[in-house]
């Protein structure tokens, strides 16, 4: 029995944070706006307006570099409360069309409209309607991609940006993937891209030369996704509300950290915050991951999984020491620290066993 093709819309707000700033402050309109760290800080660009992009500025670029590229740009500190508010308003609009919504971040979401009867079932007209309603109600501009799976829908939303939309039909799907540079595939970062190139995979079409076992050899768990997507298949469902798999906290410090003892103290503070968040959701975590970004942007992560839940903060100092033993943390200056807790389970499963030492 054939499974009916899905209809998926990927909505992506255009320069979201910058657009909110321009909307709320008319003097910013038609000007290069950079939301993120200030130029004399160590921060980075979170989002910039299309006017700023003309100067070659993009997100994740350091603010000081952005300033050099465009000294007359207006730098604005992010106001997340406002962005969240706008994002919720937009989600409210989505719910008028479907309940199958998977927000990716504040400014992006997948909508599964397979079973929608609105617009005589035309997903393209539905996307147009949603974008219009977003503009009318929030004054913000969105782009949309429409296709039969998440991967292609996301790809499509980037094609006619800003304020546009694009449809990739089932017939066009494979052709699109075939010519797509491998670096733009979901799950392909710099390291994987290098590996792909070494194997002679430059574009989607090149993936078709490999069997699944061959891909598994090189890419492990991700192989299935690559193998299927090369044939235009991406079965990942639009998940209505994702249970979070991990809870983390990280800080970029105003000054690089050089003292090991201070680094451990900072990690303990981050752990406190992460544990508070875990406990607030009545969860327990079993895995602790530490992330360290050095001043040269090199990054390491180290993790450890325990048999029991991570509860007592006091006991964690030796764990941090063990995890970072042999690393040059401190000798190499540290710019950012992060602590993530994962392998989460409901606390209610645990209350039962009595412990001798608790």
């Amino acid at each position, binding site marked *: 029995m054939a499974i009916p093709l899905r209809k998926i819309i990927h909505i992506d707000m255009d320069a979201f944070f910058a657009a909110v700033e321009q909307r709320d402050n008319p003097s910013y309109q038609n000007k290069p706006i950079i939301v993120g760290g200030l130029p004399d800080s160590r921060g980075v660009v979170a989002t910039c307006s299309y006017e700023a992009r003309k100067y070659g500025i993009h997100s994740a670029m350091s603010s000081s570099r952005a300033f050099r590229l465009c000294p007359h740009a207006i730098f604005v500190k992010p106001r997340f409360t406002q962005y969240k508010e706008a994002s919720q308003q937009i989600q409210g609009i989505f719910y008028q069309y479907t309940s199958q919504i998977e927000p990716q971040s504040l400014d992006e979401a997948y909508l599964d409209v397979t079973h929608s009867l609105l617009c005589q079932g035309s997903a393209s007209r539905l996307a147009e309607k949603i974008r219009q309603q977003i503009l009318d109600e929030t004054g913000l501009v969105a782009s949309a991609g429409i296709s039969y799976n998440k991967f292609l829908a996301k790809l499509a939303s980037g094609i006619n940006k800003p304020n546009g939309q694009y449809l990739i039909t089932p017939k066009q799907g494979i052709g699109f993937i075939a010519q797509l540079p491998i670096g733009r595939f979901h799950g392909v970062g710099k390291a994987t891209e290098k590996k792909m190139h070494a194997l002679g995979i430059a574009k989607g079409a090149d993936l078709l030369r490999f069997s699944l076992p061959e891909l598994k050899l090189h890419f492990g768990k991700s192989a299935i996704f690559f193998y299927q997507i090369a044939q235009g298949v991406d079965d990942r469902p639009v998940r209505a509300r994702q249970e979070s798999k991990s809870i983390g906290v990280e800080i970029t410090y105003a000054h690089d950290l050089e003292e090991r003892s201070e680094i451990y103290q900072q990690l303990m503070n981050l752990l406190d915050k992460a544990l508070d968040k875990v406990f607030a959701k009545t969860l327990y975590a079993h895995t602790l991951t530490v992330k360290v970004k050095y001043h040269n942007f090199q990054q390491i992560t180290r993790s450890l*999984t*325990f*048999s*029991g839940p*991570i*509860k*007592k903060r006091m*006991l*964690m100092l*030796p*764990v941090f020491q063990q995890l970072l033993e042999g690393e040059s943390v401190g000798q190499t200056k540290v710019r950012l620290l992060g602590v993530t807790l994962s392998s989460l389970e409901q606390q209610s*499963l645990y*209350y*039962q*066993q*009595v*412990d*001798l*030492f*608790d």
Partner: protein
Amino acid sequence: MKFIINRELILTPLQQIVSVIEKRQTMPILANVLFKLDNNLLTLTGTDLEVQIVVNIAFDNDEQGSITVPARKLLDICKSLPSAVDIKFELVKDKLKVQSGRSRFSLSTLEAHDYPDFEMTAMDCQFTIKTAQFKTALDKTAFCMANQDIRYYLNGIMLGIFNRQLKLVGSDGHRLSIYEGEIETETGIESRIIIPRKGVLELTRLLDNDPEQEIQVEFSKNNIRVVIENLTFSAKLVDSKYPDFSKVFEQSFNSPVHVQKQVLKDALTRVSILSNEKFRGVEFVIEGNSLQISTNNPEHEEADEEIAIEYQGEALSIAFNSQYILDAVSNLDSEMAVLTIAENLSSCFIEESSEQNYKFIVMPMRL
């Protein structure tokens, strides 16, 4: 370096050494076994930097030299050769040639002087003990130690020595086992150490020599060393104090429950099939001469069974992880098990009916 040795002389030492070598190493040379040849003595060494095993093999030979080779591969080669054959080893440039009958192997090597030293501080305490006693003490406690617990001091066995009193304790917090015995000679020592989990597991495997033989145990603040015939086992110790568990003894108890060990084990095994897969909870209802064991799981499946016991006390009900009770009861050597539950239902002692050197404690579950 060149020597010929009989397969039976080298096979067991290699097996003992490979057992401590980790499957994945931080340094490639840790996958290797160190060969040191000095006149009539061949010394084999393997380590993961936490635990080290050194075996001395005496045989006729007049050469000297040292080299390291992949341990697991060499073991597999020796294992697969016919029994009692002579094996010829010869170092040719950077390869170790291994030959026996018509089989030839050429193994890669790494320089012996790159092999890491196992750091040890001077041993300030020592005692001797019969193999049988040490093995019993470890076997009766090891099954309770924690595995990967955040409370790292629980991932091992506490060994305490107070002149002639020997005490071993293992606990993962949910259960505890305690061994208390006397050794034959005065030691004059009062000390407590924690042997890490891996060291404990290796040590129990190594103690299969003559049970009546005396072995020598030495330790310092940081290390333990046990000499078993021609083998020396060393391990780093867990640098911590063992937590206080004395409160569990300081309470009032109900009268004991006497039950046939096998009957209890069989009933628990059957009933626990329908318990929660992860937490294995079962409820005990004890009344008169009957123990009713029951359970249910999130799928709303249920099981219960009633067995005969001897019990004089008040009716009570308490719940446990069935696996913990099974482990404890299985470690009793007698046919009868005695379960003594604290009056406030906070713990359950499991012992034999006659006085023994060991007892087990299982903490309950609250349902």
